[in-house]
């Protein structure tokens, strides 16, 4: 049995047994701590740093997203913080975090964006002041998904204000139960919301919880972007709706649905290429940005197609619609991606 078949069999069984109900946008809004633990117990979290690599993770995540499985609780840890800790973390940080991530017990939220900063990550104002044996963090983060129930946070903060704004940034990992951390949900168009504000009021972070090198945060975080942008979740957020659309489609819809099938085939191959390059030690920023731009467009086009095919359940369309404004936000807006891709295109011809 291939790896893909193994995954599929297990995921199918879980679905049949009612372990989860398929839904669109499951990687962001399908939050289920038990399900994450189940995956952890199966050994399926942390493949990339446990000797399996990105291609195996690619197959696993494709199948989980296809099924609309609730993978949000461990997603950030598995996708980008785990790999960063494994690569850059101190021995103590690794020992303290990786087993918990792998078990689905350690759940990360991202503290990158700040109020008024938007896509301009370099304008971070959260300060880290030196203190005995570590740092004191002071500031506010926003658009941090599931922060109110995360166990840990990744935080980008300014450790020096003397240089150009791209310098003097440092990456930290902190325990959400530390004194001084407050997380508050932001109600959104779906209700209570996954988005949170996080307030940091002199939160102590020990030296061993600095990720990588002090002051090198900007270079490190932009390197992470390929991990953040280049995964199948940039294409498959609305796959459960596409599956319903395919089931409902008749001959009159064949052209419309067929266009999506053709495009998806190429997009998935592109995702596989990105994973293979990551396995080769590259950080393929250009291809990852291309995948995200085209993938986000695909996710929205699925909704438009579903609307036109009679018999697709309205609730599934609406669920995807309400998620849709978020697709292009996470990990860089379309405008930012356009610049990254154009730069690659011009580099490619220079």
């Amino acid at each position, binding site marked *: 049995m*291939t*790896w*893909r078949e193994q995954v599929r069999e297990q995921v199918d069984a879980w679905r049949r047994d009612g372990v989860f109900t398929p839904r669109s946008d499951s990687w962001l809004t399908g939050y289920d701590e038990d399900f994450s633990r189940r995956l952890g117990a199966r050994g399926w979290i942390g493949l990339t740093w446990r000797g399996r690599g990105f291609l195996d993770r690619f*197959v696993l995540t*494709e199948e989980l997203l*296809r099924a609309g499985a609730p993978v949000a609780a461990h997603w950030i840890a598995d996708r980008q913080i785990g790999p960063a800790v494994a690569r850059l973390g101190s021995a103590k940080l690794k020992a303290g975090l990786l087993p918990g991530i792998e078990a689905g017990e350690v759940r990360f939220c991202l503290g990158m964006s700040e109020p008024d900063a938007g896509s301009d990550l370099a304008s971070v104002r959260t300060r880290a002041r030196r203190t005995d044996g570590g740092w004191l963090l002071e500031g506010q983060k926003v658009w941090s998904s599931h922060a109110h129930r995360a166990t840990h946070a990744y935080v980008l903060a300014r450790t020096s204000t003397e240089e150009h704004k791209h310098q003097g940034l440092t990456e930290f990992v902190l325990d959400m139960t530390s004194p001084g951390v407050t997380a508050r949900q932001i109600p959104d168009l779906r209700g209570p919301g996954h988005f949170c504000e996080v307030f940091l009021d002199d939160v102590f972070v020990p030296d061993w919880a600095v990720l990588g090198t002090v002051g090198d945060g900007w270079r490190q975080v932009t390197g992470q972007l390929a991990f953040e942008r280049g995964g199948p979740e940039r294409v498959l957020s609305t796959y459960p709706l*596409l*599956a319903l659309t*395919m*089931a409902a*489609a008749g*001959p009159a*819809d*064949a*052209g*419309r*649905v*067929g*266009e999506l*099938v*053709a*495009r*998806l*085939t*190429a*997009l*998935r*191959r*592109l995702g*596989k*290429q990105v994973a293979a390059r990551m396995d080769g030690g590259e950080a393929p920023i250009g*291809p990852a940005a*291309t995948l995200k*731009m*085209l993938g986000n467009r695909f996710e929205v086009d699925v909704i438009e197609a579903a609307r036109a095919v009679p018999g697709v359940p309205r609730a599934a369309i609406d669920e995807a619609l309400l998620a849709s404004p978020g697709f292009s936000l996470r990990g860089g807006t379309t*405008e930012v*991606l*356009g*610049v*990254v*891709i*154009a730069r*690659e*295109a*011009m580099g*490619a*011809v*220079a």
Partner: protein
Amino acid sequence: MSLPDVEEAAVKVLGAAVDMRDAARITLDQGWHLLGVPESEGGMGGTLADVAGVVRAISAAGLSSPLPELHAPVVLAVANRVVVPWGDGEENIAGEPYAVLASGSPSTGATLTRWRILHAARLVGGCQGAASRTAAYAATRAQFGRPIARFQAVSALVAEAHAQSVLAAAGLEAALADPGNDFVAIAALATASRAGGVVARVAHQVHGAIGITRELGLERLTRRLWAWRDLPGEAELEPLLGLLGEQRAWTLGAGDE
């Protein structure tokens, strides 16, 4: 000759062709159609991917050749007509010949699949040629006192052309990895056809008036993209994928693992 040599030679020699008849003659004379045919059958050896590489290189240079048709001679159903690409008779918008048959059955089977893959390669090459010309133009052409690539609206267009070209190439790679699977070939060709239309439009948009001139030569790429995407392109192919069902469609995209 090694493969890059063949690609380079093909572009060079075909670039000197005086017309389409000449291009067809050169292609035959050079024996490139023997690439991808086993040596035991009198061929040059190599894989279908090797042939596709040569086809791409030729197209990327804005040139025409019946290499795909020599490899996989086909009769196609195009917009209710029965057509032989590179047969004698009419000319498409790029000046390439095709014949219209009074009657006849369109090809099926492995030959058709191979042709689809190689025709997709033709489109992918054209996309890459037009997209990279577009990026190069935007990087060097100045307006309002700076390179036009510095205008976000222009850089979005450059990104679009590049992205479409990358997507079409990924579709082709999937087809080449599983060359016996007609549905992957169909998906690759449908995607490349759509990409061709977008790239041609965007390339002209970025180039402005100069892009329309014969002298610049962009139109050698774009007219070909317009011709190729309808031979037969997405309108004929996509419906074939639309009713596969979720299971089969998903397996297509999983590829050759």
